[in-house]
């Protein structure tokens, strides 16, 4: 196993991170755009049609103007895959942070990261043990950025259920969106984490938001349909589409536990992956 710490590789990690942040902030992924276009095609409410048309026009304008899709440019959550021939190092993590700082200056991004108690802003979107960098083994060396806005994060929820309450999982997911209403800027994507530990369930729910939204399992589809029956609609103004997709990820858990987390994602479901050349 080689430890790559020469400046060239670290620079390439920074550059890849910066590019991934830029791509994520400006260009909405094609599968999300397709779901939004489909929502407009099937929508019956004139108000909801207007809201969806505004969203689609905004997506085009962001690309034309090379500007972030939304003024809440979020916290850039980072996922790294790394081949077994490379060892992850503290220098590499620092290189990722450097890429975020560059992106924050150059795009520019709103500095969103503050101390939780005195609310002082770090101005760089890095620092104070943030943002998280999740590292996993993979075939290629890639950096994925998921910028997460606060409006939808603030109405996400987690529940430690009893193992006997398995049948109540769909109810909990639908109820989370009922309580959230128009606040997370629907139409939303619901990332669901089932199992693991208290912290793993929340992590799984966020990771589920990296999944493409062009296909759902029958179970995910059923929950998505239930959420849409609530009629909350785009921006909470009523309509046929409240939820573009439900994505579920699971992990093993303690025999006495059933953790369930729901991470709500606004329509601006931003994510981008860039490969680091070795």
């Amino acid at each position: 196993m080689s430890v790559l710490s020469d400046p060239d590789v670290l620079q390439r990690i920074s550059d890849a991170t910066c590019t991934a942040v830029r791509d994520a902030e400006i260009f909405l992924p094609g599968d999300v755009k397709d779901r939004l276009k489909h929502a407009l095609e099937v929508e019956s409410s004139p108000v909801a049609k207007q809201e969806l048309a505004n969203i689609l026009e905004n997506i085009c304008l962001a690309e034309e103007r090379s500007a972030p899709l939304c003024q809440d440019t979020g916290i850039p959550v980072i996922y790294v895959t790394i081949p077994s021939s490379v060892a992850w190092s503290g220098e590499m993590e620092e290189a990722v942070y450097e890429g975020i700082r560059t992106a924050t200056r150059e795009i520019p991004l709103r500095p969103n990261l503050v101390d939780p108690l005195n609310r002082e802003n770090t101005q760089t979107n890095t620092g104070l043990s943030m943002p998280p960098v999740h590292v996993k083994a993979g075939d290629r060396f890639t950096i994925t950025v998921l910028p997460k806005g606060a409006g939808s994060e603030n109405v996400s929820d987690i529940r430690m259920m009893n193992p006997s309450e398995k049948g109540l999982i769909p109810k909990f997911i639908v109820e989370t969106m009922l309580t959230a209403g128009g606040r997370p800027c629907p139409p939303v994507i619901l990332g669901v984490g089932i199992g693991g530990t208290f912290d793993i369930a929340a992590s799984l729910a966020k990771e589920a938001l990296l999944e493409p939204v062009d296909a759902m399992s029958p179970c995910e589809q059923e929950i998505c349909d239930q959420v849409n029956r609530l009629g909350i609609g785009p921006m909470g103004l009523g309509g046929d589409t409240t939820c573009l997709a439900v994505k579920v990820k699971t992990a093993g858990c303690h025999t006495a536990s059933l953790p369930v987390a729901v991470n709500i994602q606004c329509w601006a479901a931003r994510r981008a992956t860039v490969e680091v050349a070795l």
Partner: protein
Amino acid sequence: MKHLKTPLGDEILDLKAGEVVTLSGVVYTARDEAHIKILESGFPFDPKGAVLYHCGPVIQDNQIVVAGPTTSARMNNLTGFMLDSGVRGLVGKGGMSSKVRDELKGKAVYFAFTGGCANLAAARMTLTGVHYADLGMAEAVWEIKLDKLPLTVAMDAHGGDLFAVVEEHAHEVFQGMYPTSTTEI
């Protein structure tokens, strides 16, 4: 579709919650700090027929970079005075309280603008001035000329409230789906 122009007059009394309209002419951005400043020091513009936009824009070199709506509910307790002073329109996201719904009656309407659509907003805007600039970029009162910004009348001047109707309906549907008496184990 009705095309409204500021300053607004009695034509707004004909608007109904759920109508899609466009708005043109000058509006004034106002978030929490601007509301407090106006309450203390007065209006830096003529409030008669004026429209307040709940928004903290990003301005660079006298140009509007992005200017999406912020959550209006934060201004719930600061709005009555504005409406008493002649303000006839509010633009924001997420709707406002039942108290504001009552305060709007016979006076003004609340328009919803699509959350996150910061580029669409900026593309339909020209910056024409600034007041209380000392409050900082996000909180200052920016004078912005709109060119047919697409809006939804979410709360009208007669107690109509689209957000409240949608929320009530959603709760009814949920009760039907998951009656409280059932245990689904």
